């Protein structure tokens, strides 16, 4: 079949995908022509991945049509998508480490190994993807592994290649190579759907962009001609609430100081932290915004003590001016730290333990243990107090943590962490996946705690939330932290641009 240049390769018409009451994709229209490099831009949870999985046949749309070369199709599984000519490179690689590149590819492409080796070499040379087919995967760098994934797709001769955040794991030189490859593919008539939230990359690579927010298309643009401000507004919206609570004094003693914090996780897929500086003072709430996967998880673990630094670098993290980077979590908690992690079940609470035992987890310092024995009545009344303080809906202190709804468990954990009267409280994703009522209560309590002089650091993907409760805002991008700006002076465009890696804007604003 031949396709005329003007006839689209892929067309989505009013594609809608619902999960219960939640609309992940709302009447999406999208057109891709052969040879296009088309960006899908949006925040976390904007619906990018859902849309791509729909195209790749991982799940089916509830409404709307998918047209492939002008013919309506039902793509019921990825194998069918591959047969049509759609390939996808996922963010997380699916390669077996202990076998070779060619062996990995032979698992999906039935061909003699010796033929595959030749084909892999040929594709690699044609598209600038040098990989040794006989190398074991465990010895390959992240960039090389991605090349293997791309070659695996290309061997199936796709006409459309979907790449999900392909640069999130790559060092800068590898990104250049990837772009060169993608341009070559495009010249050869292969269309590319490029999912990203990084503005510079999209500008460097893509001819068109479709911007998603809250599951709907908010606009289409030529990224090379549209300015960053407009794209940012399309991506995160305009309706940012202003803080309603009184301003902080801004002169409290520093409770947390991050001083040239650098950290590289042993796992190469995790973003390294680079030169992070931040001070959180008593009586203020500092918010860290940013798209997930930019180092927030690592930063939270380093502050909580779940990951620790070597003694030499201990002063990169200070509490009350004392180096604590080398100390384990309990030593930091003794100095007044409390922490609400983003994973409630399994980390903030043990799912198969009762609510009262989960109170003991970090509340044991409050006299709940005597001579090494648990004081059951004190333990239970501590749990009761936490339940009352945050109006937690539960069947009682003996209920398992896993029986609570996400919002109620979060309220319980927040109550527990506040009960220890912390000097410094770190909260990651305080209202992730919880209802509005619970979120409002959590916000109120955080502000109340701030007014009592606690230093609070909130890490969140929810910009509205951060605007609502923070006194100062900073953005994390690619393992770096922007200069903090006062929330009253910050604009959503500014934060949006920083979230896409345009820190220059933040530096200007700080001046």
């Amino acid at each position, binding site marked *: 079949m031949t396709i005329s240049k003007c006839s689209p390769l892929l067309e989505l018409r009013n594609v809608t995908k619902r999960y219960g009451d939640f609309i992940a994709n709302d009447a999406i229209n999208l057109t891709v022509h052969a040879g296009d490099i088309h960006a899908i831009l949006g925040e976390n949870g904007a619906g990018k991945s859902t849309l791509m999985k729909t195209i790749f046949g991982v799940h089916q749309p509830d409404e709307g049509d998918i047209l492939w070369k002008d013919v309506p199709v039902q793509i019921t599984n990825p194998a069918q998508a591959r047969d049509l000519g759609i390939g996808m490179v996922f963010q997380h690689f699916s390669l077996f480490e202990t076998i070779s590149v060619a062996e990995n590819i032979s698992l999906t492409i039935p061909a003699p190994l010796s033929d595959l080796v030749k084909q892999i070499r040929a594709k690699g040379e044609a598209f600038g993807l040098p990989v040794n087919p006989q190398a074991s995967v465990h010895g390959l760098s992240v960039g090389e592994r991605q090349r293997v994934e791309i070659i695996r797709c290309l061997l199936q001769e796709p006409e459309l290649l979907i790449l999900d955040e392909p640069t999130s794991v790559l060092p800068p030189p590898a990104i250049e190579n990837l772009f060169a490859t993608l341009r070559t593919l495009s010249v050869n008539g292969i269309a590319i759907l490029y999912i990203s939230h990084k503005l510079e990359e999209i500008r460097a690579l893509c001819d068109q962009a479709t911007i998603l927010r809250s599951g709907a298309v908010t606009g289409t643009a030529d990224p090379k001609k549209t300015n960053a401000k407009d794209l940012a507004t399309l991506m995160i919206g305009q309706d940012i609430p202003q803080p309603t609570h009184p301003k902080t004094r801004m002169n409290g003693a520093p409770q947390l100081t991050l001083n040239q914090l650098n950290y590289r996780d042993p796992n190469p897929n995790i973003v390294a932290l680079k030169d992070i500086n931040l001070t959180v003072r008593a009586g203020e709430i500092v918010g860290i915004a940013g798209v997930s996967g930019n180092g927030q998880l690592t930063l939270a673990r380093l502050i909580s003590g779940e990951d620790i630094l070597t003694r030499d670098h201990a002063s990169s993290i200070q509490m009350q001016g004392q180096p604590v980077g080398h100390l384990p979590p309990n030593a930091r908690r003794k100095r007044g730290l409390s922490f609400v992690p983003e994973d409630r079940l399994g980390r903030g609470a043990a799912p198969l333990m009762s609510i009262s035992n989960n109170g*003991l*987890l970090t509340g044991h310092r409050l006299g709940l243990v005597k001579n090494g024995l648990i004081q059951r009545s004190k333990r239970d009344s501590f749990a009761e107090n936490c339940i009352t303080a945050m109006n937690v809906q539960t069947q009682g202190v003996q209920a398992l943590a896993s029986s609570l709804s996400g919002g109620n468990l979060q309220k319980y954990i927040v109550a527990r962490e506040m009960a220890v009267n912390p000097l410094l409280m770190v909260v990651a994703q305080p209202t992730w996946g919880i209802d509005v009522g619970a979120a409002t209560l959590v916000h109120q309590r955080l502000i109340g705690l701030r007014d009592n002089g606690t230093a609070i650091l909130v890490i969140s993907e929810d910009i509205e939330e951060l605007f609502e409760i923070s006194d100062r805002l900073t953005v994390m991008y690619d393992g770096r932290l922007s200069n903090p700006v006062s929330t009253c002076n910050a604009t959503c465009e500014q934060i949006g641009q920083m979230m896409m890696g345009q820190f220059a804007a933040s530096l200007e604003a700080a001046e």
Partner: protein
Amino acid sequence: MIRYEFVPRAQPSTGALVIVPILTVALSILCGTALFYILDKPAGVAFYAFFIEPFLSNYTLSEIAIKAAPLILIAQGLAIGFRARVWNIGAEGQLTIGAICAGLIPITWPQSDNVLMLPAMILVGALTGMVWAAIAAALRTAFNASEIIVTLMLNAIAAQILVYLINGPLKDPRGFSFPQSVPFPDVALYPLLIEDSFLRANVSIYIVLALSLLAWIYVRHSFSGFRLLVSGLAPAAAHYAGFSSNRAVWISLLVGGAAAGLAGVGEISGPIGKLQPILSPAYGFAAIIVAFLGGLNPIGIVVAGFFMAVIYVGADGAVLSAGLPASAPIVFQGLILVFYLASHTLVNFELRRIGGTKGTA
């Protein structure tokens, strides 16, 4: 095509917790019967010998106590570690080392009548069992070496040390060249439950039951036990709360080693009365089954320990009366463990029927 799938339960089924041991025993008996049938052995006679005869004489009851003591003791120690997901498979070796080191005392003073000898042996046995387990703890915490592999291999080393010593330095010069030590003096032996009787049961069963009570207090009421449980149930939560995982490894292995070492003393100061090449009929491994069959619960372990002891004693009878091969009891233990692990899946998962998959276009 209709398929069945294990779906994780929202919370562990309490019903399944009761059903699992019953199901395990029932399936083991069923499978055992089939095996006996294939072997052309009378299944009825075999099971009578296995499960009824042990309760019919004072001698077999006393033997049950003798076997139950080490099984329960070791299982209590192992269970504390298993709850923290620290897998000590080396109780057999820890038992052996505890027995060797404690045995050095009566071997050095075979004519002694000092009543402090047994207490000294208990202390030395427990401590050296701990030391042997500590090797695994050190390797795990320093190099992340699997405690499963290390403890398992230390079993073989301990067994070789024992064989070397009783064939060499510790061999009884008047033992007609048998590989065994001098017989221990009376002060090195646990007092019998019934003095001057032919029954071998001794007071060590009381010590074991007292220690079981202690284990129950530790598990149910102590903060240290709580921390271990969190390490096992939710390692990330334990890490978050600042409960050191290294500490969990150390406590688990040291407690397990002490219990196994003590059980070793129970053997040489009980029915054996000297050092010999075989100190235990694999109590260290059977205790793993006892720990799980007892649901890692100190009270459940006491029950499971007696049950396993009945199988040990019954097997001796079954070998004689039903002509079963000597390996039958081991096979039976294996069946119990396999069926336990298989049926335990039902505690956290439920079996659900799922519809056919759609064909590709």
